């Protein structure tokens, strides 16, 4: 089960592709079901989450807030997946619709589980891959559950807080 993987920091001998990526879009929403709003920057708080977002620890107004999870402090999604959804399933999905906070380009999210990386000036540790949910189909009205399996983003905890801005670099720690 993807959602029960107990992620540990990967050993150094793991094969990690060379990469440097970019923050392309930033989004948050204060409560479950509400549309995600595009933001020029997000303030990440170490060990807690994103200021103003529904999953900020202490706020707990997200659809899954009744199932607490350390790695839901900030979530990422690949811009390349949006392109793939159009190519593979003829689904137009915007960066505001996948309901993850950060849309990145050039970042191999599937390789980062259990690893640390820099998102702008903030340091994150990836805890697990996200899995799609029917909830997102309910909200978007689009049949995206199946096409999102295995490419639904990454859940992370925040190790060093700071401001993340659109255009920031994403790189290995």
């Amino acid at each position, binding site marked *: 089960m993807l959602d029960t993987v107990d992620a540990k920091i990967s050993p150094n001998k793991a094969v990690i592709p060379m990469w440097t990526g970019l923050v392309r879009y930033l989004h948050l929403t*204060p409560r479950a079901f*509400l*549309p995600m709003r595009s933001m020029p920057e997000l303030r990440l708080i170490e060990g807690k989450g994103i200021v103003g977002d529904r999953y900020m620890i202490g706020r*707990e107004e*997200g659809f899954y807030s009744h199932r607490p999870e350390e790695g839901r402090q900030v979530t990422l999604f690949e811009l390349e997946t949006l392109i793939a959804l159009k190519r593979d399933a003829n689904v137009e999905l915007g960066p505001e619709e996948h309901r993850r906070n950060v849309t990145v380009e050039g970042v191999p999210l599937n390789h980062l589980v259990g690893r640390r990386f820099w998102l702008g000036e903030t340091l994150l540790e990836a805890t697990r891959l996200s899995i799609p949910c029917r909830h997102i189909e309910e909200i978007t009205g689009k049949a995206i559950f199946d096409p999102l399996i295995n490419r639904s983003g990454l859940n992370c905890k925040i190790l060093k807080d700071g401001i993340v801005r659109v255009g920031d670099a994403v790189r290995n720690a």
Partner: protein
Amino acid sequence: MSPVAVTTIKTIVEKIDDVGAGAKRFVLADPDHWELPPHRPGAHIDLHLPGGLVRTYSLCNDPADDKSYVIAVKREDAGRGGSVFLHDRIKTGDTIGVTLPRGGLRLDEHASRLVFVAGGIGVTPFLSMAAFLKRTGRSSFKLHVMARGQPPLADLLVPMLKTGHVFIHDTATTGRPDLASLVGDHMPDIGLACCGPQGMIADFERATKDWPEVRVHVERFVAPPLPVDPDAKPYTLALSRSGREIHVRAGQSMLSALQEGGIDIPASCCGGICGSCKVGWLEGRPVHRDRVLSPAERERSLMVCVAGSANDRLVLDL
């Protein structure tokens, strides 16, 4: 940690005003005036009221207004309690949980002229539609409103009287106009829609029986009674997630059997039209009797208020 799952959109009652004909208008908004989930013209939402009351109301504001959900509710003293609760107990500043908007008037996009027939408070979905049509430049529509005396929401209707979009028929003085002559003969570019009391809908359906289905939409507030099935048989619901089994008596609704088993299913219309009680099914042969699911949706979902089972066991995703 939040003790229970968030299942509804949290809204605050921003404004309540009387809109005539025994109706009140409620403006609901996010506590921080965040954008609300979008709605189609003529869509409806469920209000989850204290005490487990769930009631469905059409939205009457323009879908371009993404900061509020506006409903109008006529007080029905002999109703099921939702309207009386809203009229008597709900105050400005109260919190109400609502569902994502569903449905909407699905009219053939090729219909360039639209005729709407509304009875009383049944005018609400057409107000949202009218605002949408005017804003998007499709101004060729007529809204006929039947009401005893002054119609509700006159403040929204009067400006459209002047533009020739609205026609008010006072049934207290003239009786209900002949709907067949009102809608006329079928023309290829005309789409029709009706919302109102059961008797008026029945008249409308008779008047439009020769029209193609794609050109005619009926929005119901009261579910039509289910025909009694003399061949109804008992069956068992197997709940895949909990491992429980629920027995449904002959003629009993699936919803009622689940509720007797202590399973909380949000339900509103209980007649297969509002879409509140949709549940996934996994194995078996459901009998679909709803008027809301598409053929594709029926491949994996059913409405427990009206659905049955063609054999003695049905597995639900519960």
